[in-house]
């Protein structure tokens, strides 16, 4: 039998790689509780809520008297029989979250699925960019709210316009960042790839895509942010479920604590989505994650 280095070291390499990624994660997690950052962050939140309570509950200053104070919000939020029907025990609350989350997922996936390939292609083929870039730059600055009438005229029903609006903002951000990502790739990588005997498809899959990946993920983060922004605006205008609708409906019905509950829920949900994207990004871009040693 001849010695075959590949069969011996192949599993070793992938195994070591995986355990390294995992140990880095555990290291980070353990250090989280040791570091000051966590406690400083917690202190910041407590100070913020304290000030809010002081302004709305204790001092009731003129501009703040109508705002719900944190105690009222928390009472409503944790009550088994909420006065305004929105608490962690109310199925209705989760229904609103689910509707918004589902719409975001649809809009965001559509935007990514279309935006990333278009952006990659624009960066890859100069001619395609020459055709499309002026249109992109003309449409991109239009605020999403200006699209509302067209969205309603264009799409049937109640759901499609909402998703379209959330999609639109995310779509532009994704295209632009992907394009910038391709253009940020150093020329010497293309030269090296050609030198090593690459065909165009190799350059596309092995240089353009991985090279643009850091920018693509920045674009997806921004895209997720603006998708939430437009979604809430759209839900306020038309809808019967969703966190944006809940905010507006509670305002109309003078159920002020619910406004805060919905707002915080949006914040937390948006943050979780952002975190998810970052985690997927880090998993795909192992080379940018420096080992914690």
């Amino acid at each position: 039998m001849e010695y075959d280095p590949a069969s011996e070291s192949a599993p070793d390499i992938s195994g070591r790689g995986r355990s390294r990624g995992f140990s880095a994660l555990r290291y980070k997690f353990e250090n989280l509780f040791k570091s000051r950052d966590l406690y400083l962050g917690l202190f910041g939140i407590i100070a913020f809520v304290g000030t809010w309570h002081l302004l709305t509950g204790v001092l009731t200053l003129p501009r703040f008297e109508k705002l719900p104070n944190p105690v009222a919000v928390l009472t409503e939020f944790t009550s088994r029989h909420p006065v305004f029907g929105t608490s962690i025990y109310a199925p209705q609350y989760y229904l609103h979250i689910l509707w918004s989350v589902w719409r975001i997922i649809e809009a965001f996936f559509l935007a990514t699925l279309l935006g990333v390939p278009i952006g990659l292609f624009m960066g890859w083929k100069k001619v395609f960019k020459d055709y499309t870039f002026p249109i992109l730059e003309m449409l991109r600055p239009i605020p999403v709210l200006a699209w509302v009438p067209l969205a309603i005229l264009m799409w049937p029903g109640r759901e499609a316009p909402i998703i379209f609006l959330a999609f639109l903002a995310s779509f532009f951000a994704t295209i632009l960042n992907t394009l910038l990502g391709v253009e940020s790739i150093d020329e010497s990588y293309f030269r090296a790839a050609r030198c090593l005997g690459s065909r165009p498809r190799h350059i596309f899959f092995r240089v353009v895509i991985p090279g643009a990946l850091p920018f693509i993920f920045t674009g997806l983060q921004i895209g997720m942010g603006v998708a939430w922004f437009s979604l809430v605006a759209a839900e306020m205008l038309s809808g019967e479920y969703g966190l944006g609708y809940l905010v507006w409906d509670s305002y109309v019905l003078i159920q002020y604590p619910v406004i805060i509950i919905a707002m915080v829920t949006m914040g937390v949900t948006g943050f979780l989505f952002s975190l998810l994207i970052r985690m997927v990004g880090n998993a795909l871009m192992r080379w940018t994650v420096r080992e914690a040693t």
Partner: protein
Amino acid sequence: MTDKSSTKKFAGTNSAAPSGDGRIEISNVTKIYDPGGVNVCAVSDCSFDIEAGEFCVVVGPSGCGKTTLLNAIAGFHSISDGEIRLDGDVLCSATKMAEPGADRMVVFQNGALFPWCTVLKNVMYGPSVQGRMTSHQARAAALDILRELGLSEIGDAYPNEISSGMRRRVEIARALINDPKALLLDEPFRALDALTKGVAQEFLLQAYDRMKKTVFFITHDLEEALFLGTKVVIMTTRPCRVRKMITVDLPRPRTYKVRSSKRYLELKREVFDAVHEEALKAFKAGERELA
């Protein structure tokens, strides 16, 4: 696998095309850049030959057109006049631009290892895209070459996890695995500190002694030129043409000790004299420092 006739190659390399001799003839090459209608003559009527298997070092003041010459051989841009031949075949001429290919491997000034690939994947890249090996064979060949060059420890590290000196070595390994006819290096050790540079140079010499590929090596470090080269070509200030050629008859294999030999010091003197004059001219012409 244990074919004695291929001792010049690394164990893992077996290119489809038989490796030729790698003789490069540069005849009357002129390159005029034309940015915004202003003609910049970077290389003018430059001719010299590099013998097969020769380690040719090109030195010259910054901005004299060395990189321009290398890029023309590599196929990254065209030339305005003259022609360059590789083993007798016209590589590029006034009417034809060279295609980049695995027979002329470039090691870049600032390094161009793909940061998104591990060291092993970087080294495997050439054989696997050229389709001359299955990915399994490419992996085996890459592991072989890494082991022979003493780099097997870092196979699964990403380029940003290893030192810059290591990166240069890996880049040389990535080039050599393709069994090129010629190796083109554009100031590869420029950014390294003196100690790392010494080690990297010895690494390149060892690889050269084993492979005996034609090497086209650009530098502006004269000591480096003498230490590495078989032939040192000294260029004039822009436009670039040959001022002087010096054969470095120091014995191989060379180690750092060669730098204190009598012959080395004689040669050093000769080179410094030739270069000093050119440097002075370039300085007076106020040439902007170029990377």
